[in-house]
């Protein structure tokens, strides 16, 4: 090879060839799309919500009806017709759905994950995993009808004073809905625990139960907690099932009082659906309250995600 040929060969600039540049740009644009979408949504939520509050509306150049930020955040009555926008009524309903579904989904989901990861035979797993995936794939509107038509009447035979629309049946159905999420993420975390640790346990004379609960679950704790938080974020954001099963009358309920669960209320997501289905006019106060609720919902799920990341970092074990 002559020096000239070598010179040409070594200075081809493969890295900056048009093809490389083109593909790099294409992949960048794909990645950028999701970021741009997220930013757009946040900007839209914040600017529209800002038009709703008395304190920020002038900044947006909005004149006309506005609502007090303090009343919105601390009020417990949600009555659009009478101009009462107390978001706590809706937050309390969402909180109840979250607590109720957690009570159902966390124990059942973790138990399922332990079974799948530690006990199930190859055959049992091949049946159970697809079944869970089907559970996760059922349309949420079907869950809503299931709650209204089966769960509520079944509950009524035990608790006669229960309302047609009630938080209990909505919580149960949302709980069932998020079991697959808790189970599959927890199972992933448990399967990631190195087999060395199980061997060490068995070598010490541990039973299967000792190994599952004393070694695998603690070692997978960060993943298990993450599954709770992700599943609860899903419960908070769940819309269709609660819209159908929880009712349409907003009222402030004490989330830690079990009797509250017998009554119906209006979670944030269901309230937004109701607003959209009603004959609200664009630009009106009710229309803007939609964005205010959306922003609260967004902040809650964002905080949950941040907590999830923090927990995963804090409790992650390096094996």
């Amino acid at each position, binding site marked *: 090879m002559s020096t000239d040929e070598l010179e040409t060969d070594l200075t081809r600039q493969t890295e900056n060839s048009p093809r490389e540049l083109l593909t790099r740009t294409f992949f960048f644009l794909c990645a950028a799309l999701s970021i741009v979408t997220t930013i757009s949504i946040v900007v839209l939520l914040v600017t529209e919500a800002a038009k709703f509050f008395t304190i920020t509306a002038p900044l947006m150049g909005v004149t006309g009806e506005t609502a007090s930020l303090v009343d919105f955040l601390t009020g417990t009555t949600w009555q659009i017709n009478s101009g009462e926008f107390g978001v706590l009524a809706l937050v309390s309903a969402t909180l109840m759905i979250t607590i109720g579904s957690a009570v159902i989904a966390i124990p059942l989901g973790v138990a399922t994950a332990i079974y799948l990861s530690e006990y199930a035979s190859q055959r049992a797993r091949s049946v159970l995993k697809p079944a869970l995936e089907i559970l996760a794939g059922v349309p949420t509107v079907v869950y809503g009808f299931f709650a209204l038509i089966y769960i509520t009447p079944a509950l009524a035979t035990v608790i006669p004073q229960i309302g047609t629309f009630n938080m209990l049946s909505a919580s149960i159905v949302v709980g069932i809905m998020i079991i697959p999420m808790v189970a599959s993420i927890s199972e992933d975390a448990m399967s990631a625990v190195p087999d060395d640790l199980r*061997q060490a346990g068995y070598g*010490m004379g541990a039973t299967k139960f000792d190994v599952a609960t004393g070694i695998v679950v603690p070692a997978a704790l960060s993943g298990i907690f993450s599954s709770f938080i992700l599943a609860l974020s899903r419960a908070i954001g769940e819309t269709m099932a609660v819209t159908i099963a929880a009712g349409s009358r907003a009222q402030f309920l004490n989330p830690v009082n079990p009797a509250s669960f017998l009554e119906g209320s209006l979670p944030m997501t269901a309230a937004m659906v109701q607003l959209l289905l009603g004959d609200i006019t664009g630009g009106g106060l009710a229309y803007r309250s939609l964005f205010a609720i959306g922003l609260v919902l967004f902040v809650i799920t964002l905080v949950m995600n941040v907590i999830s990341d923090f927990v995963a970092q804090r409790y992650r074990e390096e094996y």
Partner: protein
Amino acid sequence: MSQQNTNESNARADSSPDPTDDEMLIQTDVSGSVSSSGGPSRRETVVSAENINVWYGDDQALQDITMDIPEKSVTAMVGPSGCGKSTFLRCINRMNDLIDSARVEGDLYLRGKNVYDDDVDPVALRRRVGMVFQKPNPFPKSIYENVTYGLKIQDKGGDYDEIVEESLKRAALWDEVKDQLDESGLDLSGGQQQRLCIARAIAPDPEVLLMDEPASALDPVATSQIEDLIEELAQDYTVVIVTHNMQQAARISDQTAVFLTGGELVEFDDTQKIFENPESQRVEDYITGKFG
């Protein structure tokens, strides 16, 4: 013992079969052929394997292993990769039960009780036979909790603080970790982790301690610490160690079993004899590095 003495005791054994004498005969018969039918030591037998065969699916991993492992000594198992030495180790505490495809045939006695009898609970067996693995595998818990783990699952009482101190001292780790017992076992160095695993294994006071290449993942300094430790532990425990390191077997063991490819126990005798004057040409070739 001379050949003549052996013949005499042989004759005696014939006329009045005395099991102790008979055992003595086999164990001291250094001039005989492969002494795999009996242990080479005069100590009491703790683990006794009779015709152990192991299959993984259709592949036979061990063929007719018969050997007696004497108490309070170090028995090394050496051989090339895939010769079944680890498999045999895992037969002793029935860890092979955890592998679905593994099938064990034959008898293995722990102080006279066949551990493969139907009424034997492998969990109870493993509480008497401790194990240390190739890769240090402390639990992601504190050093203290690692050492007390065995006591807790066995509901053993006693002064845990004292047992932790005692076990860590025996594992030659106490001085390095006594001020950080609440810290995670995973924060220790590899050699320290392995000594923690040894402390964890001896804390519930097992009869037999199985070690599966315990130093192969460690640096030379940590390896030498572990080797010293093993020799010391053999004063109180029956130690069975698998190693691929011939020098290590020569340094620390009292008896050596040589497994060769195909899962065959070729020779089992006093370590000195195996390394200086083995019966089998194959063993000699392996030890001198001609193959394997």
